């Protein structure tokens, strides 16, 4: 069995943002604003619709150097745990 990161389970989620129903670029803009409100090392959880949001937001988050620790599928949406760089 491969080691799947579990350290995240113990971390308190500093902020939660449901972006279902939002469209680009607001999905990323709101993610970015939420990240600005938390401390470095803290975790933001976002929920994204499939399609354009899930195709673009994780890539942009990665490009800014943040760490995506965990991803969960929730029906047609995706829940992402982002640790601020």
């Amino acid at each position, binding site marked *: 069995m491969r080691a799947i990161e579990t350290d995240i389970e113990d971390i308190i989620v500093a902020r939660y943002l449901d972006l279902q129903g939002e469209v680009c670029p607001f999905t990323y803009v709101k993610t970015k604003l939420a990240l600005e409100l938390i401390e470095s090392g803290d975790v933001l959880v976002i929920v994204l619709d499939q399609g354009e949001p899930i195709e673009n937001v994780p890539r942009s988050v990665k*490009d800014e150097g943040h760490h995506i620790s965990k991803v*969960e599928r929730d029906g047609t949406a995706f829940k992402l745990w982002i640790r601020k760089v």
Partner: protein
Amino acid sequence: MALNLEDLKAGGIISQRQKNMFSIRVKILGGNVTSAQLRKIADLAETHGRNYAHITTRQGFEISHVNFEDVEKVTIGLEKVGLVLGACGSRVRVVVACQGTDICPHALDDTQLLVRTLDERFYGRFGVPHKFKMGVSGCPNACAKHNENDLGFMAVVEPVLIDKESCINCGLCAEVCPGKAIEMKDSLPVFDSTKCFHDGKCIDICPRDSLGVNRKGWQVFAGGKWGRRPQLGIPIANFVATEQIPEMVENILSNYIKLANKRERLGELINRLGMEVICDGCIF
């Protein structure tokens, strides 16, 4: 100066329907033009044209309504900001491209570098049977419509699982793959290369950088054209490195010149004799 309309046209000075009026075609390479060049084009259009410039389909400009007596003033003005005339007639035309890795998050390779490489060696070359166009797209979004050119180049990557230990089985790669070429099996991504568009979306999205690039390069398309019988270029080679492209183009051009009838486009030659005749070293 003797006015030979054909000579003028080959050099980017196009005779208008209005008597003694010319449209001056300005070459802009790969669609990038500097502020100083834009200002000069604006000044020349104001002074010698009718205060506007036409944006051409090959990413250049035409300064229209220039009197024959003023043509030289316009060309001298253009030279001052490093601009030259756009090709017309049976010549290798301006290479068009998207912005590529300079700015685009989707881009997979440096389109502007390939454009400069192609331009230096081939631009304006005459003795070809008909017009000869090349275009470069930085990814399979194909924004530069490379495959409507005689030769088109599209940047591609082949993904591979480089670190299975770090994969967290999130499935985002499979989710975002436009070709549905990835399936999660035993908590790992498995690729079906026959469905892969080689756009690297899976590599970009992977949260753990478990996916990487196996091969990258240019997919080469031949035989695209527009006009009365439009057709798209067909892929003739894959993952070709930038430095290999000039020799490949030289090879195709020499076969084209040898085999085509006068005023036969590369695509028409391919329709008539088959793809094999135009490229010796290509994979079909």
